[in-house]
């Protein structure tokens, strides 16, 4: 799941979780020097910062730190750990599989913003499509598969980001739990706000909506 790999039946433990690129080290003497954590309590700290100490507010980023292993002894502990590494990731996956997931399109998300973020909904559809190409997907360090559209009638343009499976490790779809993006993240909302501001300040910007352009001319 995401950048995590689970291994069962290792040294009689229920499950050992590592960064997928460290999975092989579990079978080396001394666990290959991995720092051992028993139980799920360290998951939040591990998920919170990159190796160089940067805050990972978007947990879907493909910069999960390496060099650790987590030993878990029950399914409950595993679920708790996963909910720290990828908040709500398991539940969203299960709901999607059962066809009960309510996906939230971008316009719905932007229209519910408040304060300074209310401006975000002013972004044009073309501007939003550009942003997806610019900041989403594995080429921009996000491991999530986007489920939402711009609105009910406007699907995402075809791109590496819109096509991505949500599985960053080299695994088949039936071997992994994909990370799913049911609503645009707050980073995307923030970028929408900035882009909308640029569009509105530039009357000649190709993405500025005709109605906004007329309104700005009237100021």
């Amino acid at each position, binding site marked *: 799941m995401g950048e995590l790999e689970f291994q069962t039946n290792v040294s009689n433990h229920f499950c050992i979780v590592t960064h997928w690129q460290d999975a092989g080290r579990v079978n080396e003497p001394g666990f290959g020097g991995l720092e051992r954590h028993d139980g799920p*309590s360290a998951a*939040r700290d591990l998920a*919170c*910062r990159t190796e160089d100490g940067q*805050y990972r*507010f*978007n*947990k879907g980023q493909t910069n999960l730190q390496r060099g650790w292993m987590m030993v878990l002894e029950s399914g409950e502990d595993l679920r708790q750990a996963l*909910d720290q590494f990828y*908040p*709500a990731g*398991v*539940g*969203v996956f*299960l*709901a999607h599989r059962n066809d*009960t*997931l*309510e996906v*939230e399109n971008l316009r719905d998300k932007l229209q*519910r913003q*408040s304060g300074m973020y209310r401006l975000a909904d002013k972004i044009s559809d073309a501007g939003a499509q550009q942003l997806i190409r610019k900041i989403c997907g594995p080429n921009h360090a996000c491991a999530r598969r986007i489920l939402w559209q711009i609105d009910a009638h406007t699907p995402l343009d075809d791109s590496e980001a819109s096509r991505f499976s949500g599985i960053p490790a080299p695994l088949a779809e039936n071997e992994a739990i994909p990370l799913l993006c*049911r*609503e645009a*993240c*707050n*980073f995307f909302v*923030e970028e929408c706000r900035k882009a909308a501001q640029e569009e509105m300040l530039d009357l000649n910007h190709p993405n500025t909506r005709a109605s906004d352009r007329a309104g700005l001319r009237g100021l």
Partner: protein
Amino acid sequence: MPIAPKPHSALLIVGHGSTGNPDSSAPCFEHADAIRRRGLFAEVHCCFWKEEPSLREAFYMIDSGEVYVVPDFISEGYFTQDVIPRELQLTGPSTIIRGKTFHYCLPVGSHPSMTRLILRRAREVAPDADPAQTTLIITGHGTHLNRNSAQAIRDQVSRIAASGAGYAAVLDAYMEEPPFIAGWDLMAPTPQVIVVPFFIADGLHSYQDIPVLLGIEKEPGAAASQRDIFRHNPHHLRDKLLYYSSAIGTERLLADVILDQVADFDRMHKSALT
């Protein structure tokens, strides 16, 4: 107040969160861990307006059919009255959403038991200060946009003044409305002053802005989690001894206040049903 175990219910703690640093949500997670360790609920989760999981995603983390929602906010206001009900699709004290019953509790900051936490924090930060020679100032943001946040502080001031704690004076002060915290030395009649920030987390205001207004720092420092040096008390400033505590929301007993709000919800809304 002790709370009866709820082995078939979930607790959902709702915080603001931040896209800039983990300090805003850290107390939420710590309170959730503390409550989880007590084994009172089948599940304990957090969700946030500006962090993951979002309020809408939280629904998918919960397996239980009954959910108590407690806002980790300092007062009633825009977030507790507009944002949280809208995002969680709550329509009243109890709402059934796709087969789950959500009970919406009041925010932690409005509970009377916060008074106990403020007094405890004041004693911790200044254990040797004689209350009779000490002014206790509770400080908050203060803004014309939300009168409730200042009212929550004024309520605490009244309760502490009536509590018999023995402080020479108990005052409220704010960053952006009078009485201004920057004038703490002029409003305090005693040689010793304790300032307790009435915020949910150590973030921009309590750890960076207010220390500058108090005169402890010359310019805003780094976020709490990035600082190496603990702010040492007391500070000899403006001919007084000043003790400055971290935000009240970081107090570990806030977990008890969360449970108090659940117990209060049951008493107010469920007793009629039983």
